[in-house]
C-alpha cells in the first residue's frame, strides 16, 4: 500500500453535455425546468433550530405570563424570581463587563439564527434533471455515493472502492492490485471516466466534480 495517484476531473466543458450551469428560462423548460422550485423542495426545513427557539419562547413567555397574571390577581407566583432579577438589574450598570458579555452573547445568538435562516443548507437529496414539467426528482446523497461506487467497482483493475459525495464533489478512492504506477494512473483515468459517465446517466441538475484516488495495494 503505497503510492497515491490523483486524477481530478474538471467540470464538463461548456457547450457539451446536457447539464451545464443554471439553464436560462427557455432551456430550463426543456430540461424539466423551474430550478427554483427544484432547489427549494430539497432544501433543509430547519426544523430543529425552529423547534428549539419555539420551545424556549414557549417556556419563557408562559412563565412570564403566569407570573404577571398572578401578580395582577394579587397573588405571588415568583417563578422567575422577578424580585431578585429586578434587584440585580438595578445594581448592574450598562458598562459592567457582565452586561457587555451578555449583550455580545445575545448578538451572537441572533446572528446564528439569522445565518441559519438565510443559508440554504446542505440538502440530503441531490436534484436530478427531468424532462417532464411538474416533476422534481432527486437522489439521496447516499444513493449518489452508491452509484459512484458501483460504477468504479466495474472498472478493470479496481478491487476496493470507497466513495463520498459532499457538496458538488464526488470523491472515489479505489485500490488496485496493479503495481506499475503507469497502470495505476490508467486505472485512475478509467475510473474517473466510468464515474463521470454514471453521473451523466443520472443527469444531475448541477454537475458534480469527480475526483479519483488510486492506491496500489499489490
Amino acid at each position, binding site marked *: 500500500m503505497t503510492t497515491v495517484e490523483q486524477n481530478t476531473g474538471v467540470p464538463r466543458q461548456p457547450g457539451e453535455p446536457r447539464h451545464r450551469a443554471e439553464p436560462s428560462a427557455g432551456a430550463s423548460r426543456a430540461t424539466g425546468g423551474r430550478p427554483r422550485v427544484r432547489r*427549494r*423542495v430539497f432544501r433543509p*426545513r*430547519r*426544523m430543529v433550530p425552529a*423547534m428549539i427557539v*419555539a*420551545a424556549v*419562547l*414557549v417556556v419563557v*413567555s*408562559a412563565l*412570564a405570563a403566569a407570573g*404577571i397574571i398572578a*401578580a*395582577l390577581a394579587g397573588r405571588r407566583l415568583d417563578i422567575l424570581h422577578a424580585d431578585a432579577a429586578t434587584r440585580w*438589574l*438595578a445594581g*448592574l*450598570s*450598562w*458598562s459592567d463587563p457582565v*452586561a*457587555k458579555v451578555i*449583550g*455580545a*452573547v*445575545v*448578538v451572537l*445568538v*441572533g446572528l446564528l*439564527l*439569522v445565518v*441559519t*435562516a*438565510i443559508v440554504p443548507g446542505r440538502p440530503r437529496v441531490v436534484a*436530478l434533471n427531468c*424532462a*417532464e414539467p*411538474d*416533476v*422534481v*426528482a*432527486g*437522489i*439521496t446523497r*447516499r*444513493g*449518489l455515493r*452508491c*452509484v*459512484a*461506487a*458501483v460504477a468504479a*467497482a466495474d472498472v478493470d483493475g479496481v478491487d*476496493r472502492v*470507497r*466513495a463520498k*459525495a459532499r457538496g458538488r464533489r464526488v470523491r472515489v478512492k479505489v485500490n488496485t492490485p496493479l503495481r506499475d504506477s503507469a497502470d495505476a494512473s490508467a486505472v485512475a483515468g478509467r475510473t474517473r471516466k466510468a464515474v463521470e459517465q454514471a453521473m451523466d*446517466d443520472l443527469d444531475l441538475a448541477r454537475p458534480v466534480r469527480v475526483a479519483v484516488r488510486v492506491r496500489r495495494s499489490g
Partner: protein
Amino acid sequence: MNRRTARGNRLGLIIVGVLLIAAGAFALGRGFGVIPRLPGGAPVLSAPERRMANTADWFWPVAAIVAIVVLLIAVRWLFVQGRSSKIANLRVDGGSAGRTRMPARVVTRAVEQDAAEAAGVLRARATLIGSRARPGLRLDVTADERADWPRMRTDITGRVRHDLRDCLELDRLPTVVRVRMATAGGRNPDLV
C-alpha cells in the same frame, strides 16, 4: 412536513434573530457609551423605570398581553412542525347525487405497485400531497444499485405518473420523486 413550514421556520428564525441582534447591539452600545444621551454608567434598570412600572396602570396588563401573544405564536410555531401536506381522502366526482370520497390509500397503493414494476425499482412509497382539488404526488423510490436510470426515469415520470393523472382526471400532477439506493451507499459489502 410541508414547504410552508420550511418557509415559516426560516422567517421565524430571522425575526427572532433580528430582535436578539437589536437588543444585544443596544446593550453593547450603551455599555460602550456610544449611544448619545444614554450614559453607559447608568444601571440597566434605573429608578425612574422601576417607578414607572410600578405606578403606571397599563404597564403590567400590557406586559401580560405581550407574554400571552408571544406564547400563542410560539405554541403554534411548535405545532406546525408536525404539519404534513398529506391528503387522506380524495374527492371523486359522483354527479349531482352528492360527494363521493375515496381514501387516498387506494390510489397510492396502486401507484406503489405500478412504480415497483418500473425498471430498477425495488420498492416505492407514494403519498398524495397538496389539496384535494389539486393533489400532487410524492414518490419515494428504493432503487437497485445497478438501475438503468434513464429507463427508470421515463418509466416513473412517464407511465406511472400518466396512469395516475388519467385515473384522477387531472391536467397537472406536480410530482416529487426521491430516489434512494437499496444498499448502504459507498460501503457496499459486495464492493469492498
